[in-house]
């Protein structure tokens, strides 16, 4: 049921791949380690590129189409490279009630950044999350991995501008 892909993947066995391999080894290279392996891969590479998906499929002996199907089913995985900085706006109910849509609007208006898009200079990616569990602090966003609470649109704009200008030189 699990054909070996005909073309062997050119495996750049660098340190990043070793991280993924370690995860798969911990799970005995069982096919049910797929999601864990994809988590590791995304952590290591920043996103899931086709070559990595192919290598994971080969190692775990899972059909290519299934790997791709799993990688695209879950919101957490991304198949596109992300910007150097990420702004994950929470659009859960509490944040919605407290105006998360205004944050999204201002990002689109001011920087032409919609959910899932990256600025042309590759500096900033905007994503949305369905509730990060910080409802008590709505509206919230995760800015480069840190939860920022009770945000105003102006604060978000300031942060994004800072990111964009800082890394220009």
């Amino acid at each position, binding site marked *: 049921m699990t054909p070996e892909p005909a073309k062997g993947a050119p495996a750049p066995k660098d340190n990043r791949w070793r991280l993924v391999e370690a995860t798969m080894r911990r799970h005995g290279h069982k096919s049910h380690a797929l999601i864990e392996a994809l988590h590791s891969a995304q952590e290591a590479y920043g996103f899931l590129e*086709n070559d990595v998906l192919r290598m994971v499929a080969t190692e775990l002996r899972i059909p290519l189409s299934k790997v791709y*199907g799993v990688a695209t089913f879950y919101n957490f995985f991304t198949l596109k490279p992300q910007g150097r900085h990420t702004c994950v706006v929470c659009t859960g109910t509490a944040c919605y009630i407290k105006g998360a849509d205004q944050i999204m609007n201002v990002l689109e208006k001011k920087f032409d950044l919609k959910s899932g898009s990256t600025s042309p200079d590759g500096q900033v990616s905007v994503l949305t999350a369905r509730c990060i569990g910080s409802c008590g602090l709505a509206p919230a966003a995760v800015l480069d991995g840190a939860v920022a609470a009770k945000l105003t649109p102006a604060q978000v704009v300031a942060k994004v501008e800072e990111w964009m200008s800082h890394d220009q030189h």
Partner: protein
Amino acid sequence: MSSRPSAKPTAPAPSSKVKTLTIDDRLVSAREDESILDAARQNGIQIPTLCNLDGLTPVGACRLCMVEVKGSSKLFASCVTMVGEGMEVVTDSERLQNYRKTIVELLFSERNHICAVCVSNGHCELQNLAQLLGVTHLTVPYRNPKLPVDASHERFVNDHNRCVLCQRCVRVCGEVEGAHTWDLRGRGIDTRVITDLNQPWGSSETCTGCGKCVHVCPTGALTEKGKSIREMAKQSRFLPYLTMMREDRSE
């Protein structure tokens, strides 16, 4: 899916018991490992289906075969509900017909099913269902999504505009051919069938070109290149044949 035993064993287990039940007020009997749909069909009672195909693991996805069972307010997908002793099944109440019509409408609205210019016009299961259920127009708005056509394979075409996501191609490729070239990507309204890493079909490394997916496809989503409407009738009879030939008859 494949890790779970098929709901339809290829041979009856020697210990399986027979149940009697009524379907549309008719007394019928069936093995306990048979579905309501099986029992109905054996007795000439037709329940509309789309995702179901004899020889493939039932998935209960299209929801067209829903039936009422007396004593429960819930509806049951007859393809995945096993028969039970004394069950009273209703297959064609007004409520059910109404739901089925809406489900067919939803399918027509989801993508761009333009029968007049489709190679499966005249032998399409979706088109037949609409006619059977009396869907003469859609009450829901058309979504008109922009979808690609993949004609990269030398013999076959995949037109996403006509796909109903029944997963027959996914199942026949995985369960019968064993290539698992097909799967689904994305989710919800953005779900699509894919080959390998969502690459053009023609560049697939795992497709054996056997054409089983084309012939189990209920609509014009998967077709053979260069065939006229008249020639493009699907032949899915190979499936029960293969199932039969693979049966264990070692005793």
